[in-house]
């Protein structure tokens, strides 16, 4: 049976049988992988601790008809361990992992998604920024990689140079007064500046933002995400903001 080796991020796990798990991974070169990890739920497992969501691992698998089988896993970055000790970071990471799973396909390489997710998890583990800001930055950029880049300056419909005040989720961002469809919202200019900063990773602007603008931006990002994804992101319901 052909074997392969790849760096991968663990996205999700399911219990299988008595002591096994099905592990969903995002491989650096192979895209999304579904594999069985045998015996990893036993306390004597040699690599069970490395196959937890949010861990970056170097995995060796052999290909199967439906599911591959993990034969070895070495830890590259145990982000999940650090993230689990901060509850807002944990809920943010859960949304990131679930979104990534929805935006990627089995067997289709997704290097940009891999890099973005690894960077996002590293930022959460380092705890240098508000986890909600890290999440919103990740979501905006992940959606852009998937082809749904939001516009926060120029009109998303006609391209007229901004800034514009109105925001319309189905149109893909801010809209000019001429294009403004019914149902558009008018967020605070600071919120639009924050969203733009999150998209471009301008952390000096993002970290200096006020709480109400963060809250408004988060709501807009969540609405934008749910609009574009076919299935809802379940973990968004359990997201916890930093007090």
């Amino acid at each position, binding site marked *: 049976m052909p074997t392969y080796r790849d760096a991968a991020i663990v996205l999700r796990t399911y219990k299988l049988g008595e002591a096994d798990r099905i592990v969903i991974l995002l491989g650096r070169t192979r895209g999304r992988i579904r594999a069985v990890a045998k015996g990893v739920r036993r306390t004597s497992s040699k690599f069970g601790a490395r196959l937890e969501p949010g861990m970056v691992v170097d995995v060796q698998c052999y290909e199967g008809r439906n599911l591959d089988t993990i034969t070895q896993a070495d830890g590259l970055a*145990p982000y999940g361990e650090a993230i689990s000790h901060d509850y807002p970071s944990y809920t943010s990471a859960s949304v990131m992992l679930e979104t990534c799973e929805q935006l990627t396909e089995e067997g289709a390489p997704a290097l940009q998604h891999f890099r973005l997710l690894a960077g996002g998890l590293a930022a959460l583990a380092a705890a240098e920024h508000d986890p909600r800001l890290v999440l919103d930055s990740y979501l905006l950029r992940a959606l852009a990689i998937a082809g749904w880049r939001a516009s926060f300056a120029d009109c998303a419909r006609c391209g007229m140079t901004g800034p514009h005040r109105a925001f319309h989720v189905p149109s893909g961002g801010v809209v000019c007064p001429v294009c403004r469809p019914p149902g558009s919202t008018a967020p605070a200019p600071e919120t639009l500046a924050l969203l733009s900063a999150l998209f471009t990773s301008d952390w000096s602007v993002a970290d200096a933002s006020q709480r109400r603008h963060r809250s408004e931006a988060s709501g807009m990002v969540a609405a934008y995400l749910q609009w574009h994804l076919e299935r809802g992101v379940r973990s968004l*319901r359990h997201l916890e903001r930093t007090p």
Partner: protein
Amino acid sequence: MYEGVVQDLIDELGRLPGVGPKGAQRMAFHLLAADPEDITRLAEALLQIREKVRFCEVCGNVAEAERCRICLDDRRDPSMICVVEQSQDVAAIERTREFRGRYHVLGGAINPIGGVGPEDLRVRELVARLADGEVAEVIIATDPNLEGEATATYLARLLAPYDGVRVSRLASGLPVGGDLEYADEVTLGRAFEGRRMISTGPTG
């Protein structure tokens, strides 16, 4: 495919966790060949589990009355509550004979991707048990995986404002009988974090 009741039995057995179609078929034919008394006993046990077993109103463990035998036992220390994810964990800890306090079964762990939040667990009931001031220590014994750790983090934060209630977490580390060189870095890291002194050197 078999006819009538045999296929019905195979289908029902196949719905049990960890039982595939082949396993279900093997069990069904074993039952067909078994002593009728054994089958009657099995059928009665299945009916009784439906009729008699319920969840303890205090701790959420499986019980045959309103309260489980541990909550009814006066010799158990009421000042210590060990929080576990499921009833099977109670049995595992009881086998150690190390813990003489009481339990609280959460009914799972916080798993946002799986759609399980704190409100889906028996967290409110745990907080209610602290109201009378009798509890001095809550030992969090959730699974040592990501969801279990996050649940422990959540509970520790939730219970922090309760005066006089210590919150502890089961130690994680090296399995007894294993070789150090085979330990993964996460487990070994936790073993270092939770190391304990065995000698403090000469004093005075």
